[in-house]
């Protein structure tokens, strides 16, 4: 793998057109047939894992630290819904690099020296930040458009300037390309030190201003109303992104930098709701990605380290997406199932209670049989769903099956069912008396909320509705009870007919 390829390919999307245009130039014949990755022997593994090579040590330290710093700063940009700000700002540094090179000789400086180029990049990054804030705060365009405009316009300007740089006699070899392309594999000790310093700086700033930055991320308006300097804090977050981006850019290149700012933070979000923990997890994922990615690239010499870091990070992202403990997909599916099951159970018990009540006083109705078919018709549920709930309730000792295809509540079942009916009716009463909802519509509304009523709320409702309450037992239903599914469906239609869609103003912008 030649360094040139790494340099060329590991960059921005721009070269894609080029790979196409220059596809004939891809060295072909034998490389097409030889795509296998040679499995390294144990010696190679040992060399890398024990960090025997100086170069491996430097690269792994540097990328690991960069991953941690980027993960830390990325958490804030993610919560500010500006995940792609790294993308925009890393493009925005380009004109500064070119201009610094062109103008440095007039100031008596060496245009190729790293501090000069970094200063140029930082200044141009700051102009980019100012442009994003200008567009967001003073026009009616949104965040994404601001990022897109800054990204493309600054990058265009950068390309125009770099084309001119190429015409300067010494310009072609100036190494400005490494700013765009990165040079992960040839990272040197001073790069790793620079990354360490920048990382430490961002940790200190974040630790000092943690409260303010948190407030800004979660409630910008509130932070402003409490007198925090929102604009300055916003600038500070962006400045941290600029610092991390610039340090990372010349070490690892554009796309890797974007990935490190976005992916670890997005992955950490699945594990916790706590910002501090999220930042720890995020920088952990970034660090692991940097270490593991560059280790893999060192072990398999055919794999570019930048790409491997991204792939390790995004594997961790997909793992978190599935298994994350607080927002992962599986956890949320399980939670929804649990809720659906408990809703079905409550519907079953309340349905039985209502049917019993229709015949006689339900309070002492343990043992009286309710036909299964009548229950099935009460709601639009499949017999499979209903039977599963019946089994579960039977298992919990709330009801028993009789021989005549009927069900009856146990003593415990009566207590539970009357509690549920009571809560449902309390809410209906509340809607009728306090919110002026027509009695014909309250059943639906109460149905939606009864499953999530907390005990404190029930107590409050009871207090509020003291006068309507019958002494001790379950409140009477404030509307006639329907016993067949057909009537219920008709009622639903009548309800939903009222809610026509709002008119749209023709051709107006929102």
């Amino acid at each position, binding site marked *: 793998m*030649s360094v040139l*390829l790494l*340099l*060329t*390919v590991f*960059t921005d*999307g*721009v*070269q894609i*057109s*080029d*790979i*196409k*245009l220059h*596809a004939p130039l891809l060295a072909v014949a034998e*490389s*097409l047939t030889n*795509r296998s*990755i040679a499995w390294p022997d144990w010696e190679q593994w040992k060399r890398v894992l024990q960090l025997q090579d100086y170069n491996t040590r430097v690269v792994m330290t540097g990328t690991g630290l960069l991953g941690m710093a980027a993960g830390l700063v990325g958490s804030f940009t*993610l919560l500010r819904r*500006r995940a*792609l700000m790294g*993308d925009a700002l890393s493009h925005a540094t380009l004109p500064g690099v070119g201009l610094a090179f062109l103008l440095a000789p007039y100031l008596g400086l060496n245009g190729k020296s790293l501090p000069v180029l970094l200063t140029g990049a930082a200044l141009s990054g700051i102009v980019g930040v100012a442009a994003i804030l200008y567009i967001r705060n*003073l*026009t009616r365009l949104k*965040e*994404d458009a601001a*990022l*897109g*405009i800054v990204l*493309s*316009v600054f*990058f*265009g*300007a950068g*390309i*125009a*300037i770099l*084309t*001119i740089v190429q015409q300067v006699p010494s310009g072609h070899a100036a190494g400005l390309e490494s700013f*765009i*392309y990165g040079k992960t594999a040839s990272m040197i000790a001073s790069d790793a030190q620079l990354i360490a310093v920048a990382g430490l700086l961002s940790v200190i700033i974040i630790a000092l201003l943690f409260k303010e930055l948190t407030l800004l991320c979660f409630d910008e308006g509130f932070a402003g109303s409490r007198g925090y300097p929102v604009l300055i804090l916003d600038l500070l977050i962006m400045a941290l992104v600029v610092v991390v981006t610039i340090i990372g850019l010349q070490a690892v290149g554009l*796309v890797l930098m*974007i*990935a490190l*700012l*976005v*992916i670890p933070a*997005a992955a950490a979000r699945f594990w916790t709701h706590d910002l501090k923990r999220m930042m720890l997890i995020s920088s952990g994922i970034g660090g692991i990605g940097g270490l593991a990615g560059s280790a893999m690239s060192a072990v398999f010499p055919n794999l*570019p380290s*930048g*790409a*491997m870091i991204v*792939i390790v990070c*995004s594997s961790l992202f997909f793992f978190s997406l599935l298994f994350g403990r607080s*927002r992962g997909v599986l956890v949320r599916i399980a939670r929804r199932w649990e809720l659906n099951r408990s809703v079905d159970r409550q519907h079953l018990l309340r349905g039985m209670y209502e049917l019993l009540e229709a015949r006689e006083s339900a309070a002492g109705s343990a043992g009286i049989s309710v036909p299964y078919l009548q229950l099935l018709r009460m709601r639009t549920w499949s017999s499979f769903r209903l039977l599963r709930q019946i089994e579960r309730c039977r298992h919990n000792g709330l009801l028993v099956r009789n021989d005549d295809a009927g069900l009856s509540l146990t003593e415990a079942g009566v207590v539970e069912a009357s509690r549920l009916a009571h809560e449902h009716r309390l809410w209906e009463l509340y809607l009728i008396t306090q919110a002026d909802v027509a009695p014909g519509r309250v059943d639906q509304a109460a149905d939606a909320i009864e499953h999530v009523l907390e005990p404190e709320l029930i107590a409050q409702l009871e207090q509020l509705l003291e006068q309507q309450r019958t002494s001790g037992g379950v409140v009477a239903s404030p509307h006639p009870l329907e016993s067949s599914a057909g009537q219920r469906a008709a009622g639903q239609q009548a309800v939903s007919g009222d809610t026509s869609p709002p008119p*749209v103003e023709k*051709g*107006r*912008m929102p």
Partner: protein
Amino acid sequence: MSGLENWSWDYDGWIVLAGMLCAVAASLPGNFLLLRRMSLLGDAISHAILPGLAVAFFVSESRSSLPMFLGAVIVGILTALFTEWIRNFGDVDEGASMGVVFTTLFAIGLVMIVQAADHVDLDPGCVLYGAIEMTPLDTVDVAGEPIPRVVIVLGSVTIVNLLFVVLFFKELKLSAFDPGLSTSVGFSARLMHYLLMVIVAVTAVASFETAGNILVVAMFVVPPATAFLLTERLGMMISCATVIAMLSAACGHLSAVLVPHLFGYQSTSTSGMTALCAGMFFFAASLVSPRNGVIVRIVRRQKLAQRILSEDLIALLYRMDERSRDCAVSSQKLSSVLLSRPWLGAWLMNRNVRKGQVIRTESGYRLTDAGRDLGSVLVRSHRLWEQYLVSEGGVAVDRIHGQAEKLEHFTSRDLRDRLDEVTAAPSTDPHGSRIPSEHMD
């Protein structure tokens, strides 16, 4: 040396035309990307199509254009799909899911390409600039005329996009503004979304091949954003964006040829300068847009501030006049009471003199009849509001002055009459001052 001596319509004309076609083709779907807040999709697709190219290269074992084009388009569409899935399933912010998808795809493509080729001889310079300058060199004969291939490709993409926007205008509009309503009246918002994604991917890939991605990523965002600032109607916005895109392309090539000459260099990248020109147009629009321009708003605010101050001056003169008939006051005195800058007070009083509301005498300013009418209207509004705030709003007497001071400048005749009615036509305000009667004319 102007830089234009090498200009030739046979050569530069084609470049400008190719640039314009690319710009228009991208800005048409770009309008809807902007409205759907997906402006960065073009950028994401431009990074993400790498594995598509690599797979096409492996499968076809050739470098011909068609498989590569198909591979890139398919991955471009997948990028949009994956972004959507991660956003929905993972409940992740749009930008973050886009960032995850395109960097991952890019990395995968990179690994694949490294496996395919042990070394590649690419010129990084050529990579960055886009190849639009090479447009006239690669021609195809159409009806005996040599026409650049790029122009044919981009021309067909532009026509397809134009047809798409015109034919589906209503559906696109509705699904961009109100996806729920759109689905409920029968055009699936989801279908329109995916159609738009296909169009975006095709446009992006076709343009990368021909004009470089800087140009197309910029044209997806900047002209629609500029048009968005200038107008509030969608049809108008699309037309504006098209015109701005064409102007940017033309100015871009011109400035790529001209600007570097001012500093003694050769011409620079057309794609880069086109993006920069579009950025300049955007900046200009953000300053002077008729409704929302930054400068326009500043001017409007200044004018309002001056009107209020000038009315305050008249009202103050009126109140002094109430206490001692025909008194004359110096502009320094007025300014110091109103806490305004003396020169501003003096200047506004001069303006009031020209309007005939005030006359200047030896001892100071004095109200004319016209000025006294205006003053009485203002003071009447002020005192009616004070009365209203106390009697209807239940505000304490010591707190009403500030609010009335603000409201008096925005109170019309109708509103004064209604205040008068609601407060039962009082003759004095809560402070005991007389409320002037409505001026009859």
